[in-house]
C-alpha cells in the first residue's frame, strides 16, 4: 500500500509543474515506425520543436477504447502548447476532447476542425498525389501491355477515398492522353483492394499478390503499414521473373518510399504530413482561431516524389537505422535506374498533368462521402 501511495505521489510530482512548453503527438494506431504517415508527423514535430525551442512528447493509443480518456488526460495536464492528433480514427474523440477542454489547443492531421475555435484541421488534397501516381501507373501499364493498374488500400475512410478517387481519375486521364498522343488504342481498368487495416502487412501482401495475378502490375499502396506487404509482393514477383528492376512496380504514399524496395518502387504520391504538423505548432503559438488548413500541390503539400524527396528519405532511413538494401548511393542508383527504365513520355505526361493541376485547369473528383466515392468508382472503373 505504501509503495502504491508513494508511486502515486511521485506521479503527481512528476506532473506538477504546469507551463505549456511541450508539443504532444498522439497517434491513433501503430505510431512511428511505419516509414510513412506517422514517421513524417514525427519529423515535422521534431523540426518544429527545434525551431521553436519546445520539448516533444509522443504516445500511441493502446486501443481505440481509450482515445477519449487518453486525450482528456493529456489536455488536463496543461503541459502542451498543442496536442496533435495523428490519424483519421480520432474523428469522434478529438473534437469531443476539444469541446471538453476549450483552453487546450488541438490539431487534427487528416481531419477537419469541426468549427471549434481551439482546433486546427489539417486536410490534404490526396486526390492530387493519387492522380499523379495514377497517370504514371497507367502509362507504364499501357507500355507493358497490362490490362489494369491496382491499389492496396487501408480502411474505407475519406483520406483513402480521396487517394483512390485521384488514382482512378489519373489512370483514365493517362489513357486519353496516350490515345491523343500516339493514335493507338488503350484501355486500363483500376482495381482497388481494401484490406480493412493500416497495420496488416501480411494482408497487404496477399492483396497485392492477387492484383498481380489479375494483371495489375502497377500497384499503389495507400494503406500505411499494410502496404509494406504489397511492396514485398511486388519485389518478389519481379525477382521471380529474374528482374533487378520492375515491372511489376509499386508506388508509395505519403513519404517518398522508393528506398524500401529500390528498383521496384517507381514513385510515391506525396502527402507532406511533416509540413502540416509544423504549421500546426506555428498556429498554436499564435493567436489565430481554429480553421481548416488544406494543403495541396500549390502549397507543396502534395505531389509526386522528386529527386530531392528521394534523397531526403534515403538520408532519413540511414539516420533511423533502417536496413537499406545496399549503400545509400547504390540504392539511389537503383531507384533512378527504375525511373529511366520506363518510356520517356511517362514523365512528359506527368509534368503536363502536374502543370495543369497547379494552374487549376484540372478538377479532380471529390470523395468525402461513401456516395461520392461510389460515383467516382462508377465513372472511372
Amino acid at each position, binding site marked *: 500500500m505504501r509503495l502504491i501511495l508513494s508511486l502515486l505521489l511521485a*506521479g503527481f510530482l512528476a506532473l506538477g509543474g504546469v507551463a505549456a512548453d511541450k508539443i504532444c503527438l498522439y497517434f491513433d494506431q501503430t505510431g512511428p515506425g511505419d516509414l510513412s504517415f506517422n514517421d513524417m508527423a514525427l519529423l515535422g514535430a521534431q523540426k518544429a520543436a527545434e525551431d521553436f525551442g519546445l520539448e516533444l512528447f509522443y504516445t500511441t493509443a*493502446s*486501443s481505440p477504447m481509450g482515445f477519449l480518456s487518453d486525450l482528456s488526460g493529456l489536455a488536463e495536464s496543461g503541459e502542451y502548447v498543442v496536442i496533435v492528433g495523428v490519424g483519421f480514427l480520432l474523428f469522434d474523440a478529438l473534437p469531443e476532447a476539444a469541446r471538453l477542454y476549450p483552453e487546450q489547443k488541438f490539431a487534427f492531421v487528416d481531419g477537419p476542425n469541426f468549427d471549434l475555435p481551439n482546433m486546427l484541421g489539417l486536410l490534404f488534397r490526396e486526390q492530387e498525389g493519387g492522380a499523379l501516381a495514377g497517370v504514371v501507373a497507367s502509362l507504364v501499364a499501357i507500355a507493358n501491355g497490362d490490362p489494369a493498374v491496382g491499389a492496396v488500400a487501408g480502411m474505407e475512410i475519406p483520406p483513402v477515398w480521396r487517394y483512390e478517387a485521384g488514382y482512378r481519375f489519373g489512370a483514365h486521364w493517362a489513357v486519353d492522353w496516350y490515345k491523343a498522343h500516339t493514335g493507338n488504342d488503350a484501355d486500363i481498368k483500376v482495381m482497388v483492394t481494401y484490406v480493412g487495416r493500416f497495420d496488416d502487412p501480411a494482408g497487404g501482401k496477399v492483396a497485392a499478390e492477387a492484383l498481380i495475378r489479375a494483371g495489375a502490375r502497377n500497384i499503389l499502396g495507400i494503406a500505411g503499414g499494410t502496404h509494406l506487404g504489397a511492396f514485398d509482393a511486388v519485389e518478389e514477383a519481379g525477382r521471380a521473373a529474374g528482374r533487378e528492376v520492375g515491372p511489376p512496380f509499386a508506388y508509395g504514399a505519403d513519404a517518398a518510399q522508393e528506398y524500401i524496395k529500390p528498383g521496384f518502387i517507381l514513385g510515391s504520391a506525396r502527402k507532406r504530413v511533416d509540413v502540416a504538423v509544423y504549421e500546426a505548432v506555428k498556429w498554436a503559438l499564435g493567436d489565430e482561431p481554429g480553421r481548416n488548413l488544406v494543403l495541396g500541390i500549390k502549397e507543396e503539400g502534395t505531389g509526386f516524389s522528386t529527386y530531392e524527396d528521394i534523397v531526403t528519405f534515403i538520408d532519413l532511413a540511414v539516420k533511423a537505422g533502417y536496413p537499406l538494401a545496399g549503400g545509400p548511393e547504390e540504392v539511389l542508383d537503383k531507384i533512378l535506374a527504375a525511373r529511366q527504365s520506363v518510356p520517356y513520355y511517362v514523365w512528359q505526361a506527368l509534368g503536363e498533368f502536374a502543370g495543369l493541376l497547379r494552374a487549376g485547369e484540372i478538377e479532380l473528383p471529390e470523395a468525402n462521402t461513401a456516395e461520392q466515392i461510389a460515383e467516382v468508382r462508377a465513372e472511372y472503373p
Partner: protein
Amino acid sequence: MRKLAETLLALGLGILVGALVMALWGHDPWSSYAYLLAGALGNTRALLSTISRSLGLVLTGLTFAVGARAGLFNIGAQGQMLLGAVVALSCGLLRLPAGVHLVMALLFAAIAGMIWALPVAVLKLTRGVSEVISTIMLNWVAHWLVLYLVVQKLSDPILGQRTFTAPLGMRFPVIKGELTWALALVLATALFFWWFLWHHAKGYEIRAAGLNPRAAAAAGISVRGAMFTALLLGGVAAAWAGAIQVLGRFPYAITSDLANLGSLGFDGIAVALIGRNHPLGILAGAFFFGTLATGAAKMGLRGIPIDMIYIVQGVIVVSMAAPEALRLIRIRRPAVALREEEG
C-alpha cells in the same frame, strides 16, 4: 484468503518482471509505473474512464467464469460480444420511446448471445464436440459477419470509419464523465451470477458438475443440463458486454475495424482467471485490467514504446492469471465424464 495472498504475490512478481524488462531496455520502470497509475486513477475523470473501460470486461469475465464453474473452457465470449454489439446497434433502426428502446436493445442482444451459444451447447452435449474448437470457429464466423454488417450495412453515410451512432433514447444515461448507468447493469449482472451460483439449486448443480462430473452425475445431477445453462447464461453476459460498448460508451457506435470493441471477449478470460472465477474477484480483476489499459497512454509519454507497454501489461496479467489457470488445468476432465454419463 490464501487465494488473495497468492494473487497479490503474483501481482508483485509481475510488476517486478515488468520493471526488469523496462530497465533492461533502458527505461525507468518506477516513474513509468507512477505515470501508469496517475493516468488511470490520478483524478476523478481518469477514475471514471477506468471504471467505464472495465465494465465490459466484468461481463466477458463472467462468461468464462460460469463456464469454468461447469467444467467448460468457454472462449466464445468474443464472438458473442461482437454479435451483441451489432444487434444492440441495429435496434437503433427501430423507432421506439426512450428507455423502452434501451430495454429492447438489451433484450435482443441477450437473445443474440444465446443463439450464438446454442450451437456450442448442442454440439457439445449431443456430439461431444469440444467447446474450445466450436467457440474458436464461431468467433471467426461472428467476426466476419459483424464486420460485413458494420462496413456494408450499418456504416454512417458520411463518416465511413464507423457505424451510425445509437439514438439518444437507446443509450444509458451518463453518470459523470465517461461513466454511464451501464454500471448498474454490470453490477446487477455480477450480483445475479453470484446469487445464482451460490444460492440457487441450478447454480449448485453447475458448480458440482464442474468440481467432479462423475460424482455429480452419480448424485443425480444432469451434467449436460448444467453445461447447457452455463453456456447460455455466458452468452447473455458476453452479448451485453458488446451491447454496453455501443449503448453506454462514447462514441456510441462501432468503428469500421471493430477496434472499439477490442478483444473484450478474450481479455475476459484473463479477468476471470485473475478473479478466480468468482463474481467479486472478477469485479476487482476487471478494474485492475482497466487500470493497466487506461494508464498506458500516460506511460507512453515516458518515452516507452507502445510495444513495450504491451509486454509489461502482458507479463503482469499472465503472472496474475497463472495460479487459477494452473488449478483449472489440474482439475479439468469433463470430456471423460460426459462419455461416462452416456454409459
